[in-house]
């Protein structure tokens, strides 16, 4: 099969129209990290990341209280988050940016509230979905996109972090997979309540992210990839995942 464009006569002519390229933004076309606009946007994005890592630490310690037999592993995972937090504080300092922590606290407040409610009610499935699946998938997707456009210092740190985050996602996947037969309904309900929050959070930072050359469409796609992978890994089928993912877009 030849693959040419509908309205084009030859393959060669394609190059002149649709395929007008194309500076490769991944190689050398990075944003200017020194502008006020960049630093202003970075003060919020950096704060979200720092707050996110702190939340993650707190959440894994809390989850350990519901899962005493995994306490050692969860504490280990939690401590990694604090290490990440220190790394991202260093990234801000490196660019002489002060993180807007007030903004970040507010940014996470609803998700934080839902997690705390689930914790009080000992809804372990909901806690794991919020922290180990949704927040981790959100972090992984944002870090992957950020790595492509980060300053060299932050790029190195973020690359180290993203590999750790997969361990956290895997922990959640594993537990939910093993317990899927008893926790599926709670999982679906928790997803319905919390996935739209993730989407809103993404929308909320889209403008700042764009200033950092992070494309919203790309962020969302990366999130959907990590999220879908996690659900598949847990043993949900395509239709179930489709229904769950719908919660993000309606």
């Amino acid at each position, binding site marked *: *099969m*030849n*693959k*040419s*464009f*509908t*309205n*084009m*006569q*030859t*393959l*060669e*002519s*394609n*190059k002149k129209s*649709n*395929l007008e*390229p*194309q500076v*490769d*933004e*991944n*190689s050398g076309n990075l944003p200017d990290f020194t502008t006020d606009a960049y630093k202003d946007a970075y003060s919020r994005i950096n704060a979200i990341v720092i707050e996110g890592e702190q939340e993650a630490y707190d959440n894994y310690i809390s989850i350990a209280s519901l899962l005493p037999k995994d306490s050692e592993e969860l504490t280990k995972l939690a401590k990694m988050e604090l290490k990440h937090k220190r790394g991202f504080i260093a990234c801000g300092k490196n660019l002489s940016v002060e993180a807007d922590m007030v903004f970040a606290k507010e940014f996470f407040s609803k998700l934080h509230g839902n997690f705390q409610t689930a914790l009080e009610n000992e809804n372990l499935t909901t806690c794991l979905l919020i922290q180990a699946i949704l927040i981790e998938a959100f972090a992984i997707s944002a870090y*992957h996109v950020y790595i492509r456009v980060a300053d060299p210092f932050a790029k190195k740190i973020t690359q180290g972090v*993203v*590999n750790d985050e*997969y361990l956290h996602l895997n922990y959640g996947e594993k537990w939910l997979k093993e317990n899927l037969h008893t926790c599926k309904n709670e999982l679906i309900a928790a997803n319905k309540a919390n996935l739209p929050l993730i989407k809103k959070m993404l929308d909320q930072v889209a403008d700042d992210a764009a200033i950092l050359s992070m*494309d919203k*469409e*790309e962020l*969302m*796609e*990366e999130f*959907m*990839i990590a999220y*879908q992978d996690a659900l598949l890994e847990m043993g949900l089928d*395509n*239709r179930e995942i*489709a*229904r769950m*993912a*719908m919660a*993000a*877009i309606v």
Partner: protein
Amino acid sequence: MFGLIGHSTSFADAKRKASILGFDHIAEGDLDVWCMAPPQLVENVEVKSAVGISIEGSYIDSCFVPEMLSRFKTARRKVLNAMELAQKKGINITALGGFTSIIFENFNLLQHKQIRNTSLEWERFTTGNTHTAWVICRQLEINAPKVGIDIKKSNVAVIGATGDIGSAVCRWLTKKTGIGELIMVARQQEPLIALQKELDGGVIKTLEEALPLADIVVWVASMPKTMEIDISRLKKPCLMIDGGYPKNLDEKFKGNDIHILKGGIVKFFNDIGWNMMELAEMENPQREMFACFAEAMILEFEKCHTNFSWGRNNITLEKMEFIGAASEKHGFSAIGLDKQINPLPV
């Protein structure tokens, strides 16, 4: 395992198919939602060849639709993400179907080896162009005599002659088939002259000059939608092989003694038991498929795990002979005109 990366022919079609498959969140979304949608592994299948070798494979829909062609970054992500998924699933050899391989080639995706935590291994992918080129040549050789064309005396126009498939077809027709005269048509003159030199033959013409001269026309580039052709100026009989994508020649050339054949499509000897080719709108979806997809299956049957068709103008006669022999051995044949001339009673 073999893999096929495909996509729908239009956004409307994609939504309809997603709905049938139960991917409601994507089906109901607008184009922006599709731009954010991850690739989907739609189907797994087991196939047994004519010589009894069993293989397993997967069909991956990249969630790309042609409407995304103008969104360079989106199109690039769709292709790379689908390739990453194929590799993560451990698929040995995956064919890049539809627009996927042309996006890969023209957007220069070779420089994007690292996708998240996956380093893409190019040897796991093939454009399938070698098999497509071979199938088109066989379709010409088998079907021209059936409509009363003497191949040895025929003028064959190849439209899109300098492309990967086009140049391979020119090479085969000149060196293996033996035709009257090769007429080469393409936009750019430089590669045409280089091809003429390589082949030590063939004439270069514009499309308008070439069509009235040709007994056989091989289209390996799609025809412009706006193009008007006066079919009274065409030779009769005339065999047209539609190797372009999407296939739209039959809309343009309806007429007596003009025979249009869907190019680069093969038929397997047995029902495969998959749904994926219904999505690709094959006439006999249990057996027919794009030759580029079949290439991945053939390579898996042969345990030939390599990027057999890769890059541009690397298709040699030896490679075409190898893939052609393997294609026939495992039960593939090029679809012909027969059923179009004498339709079976229903």
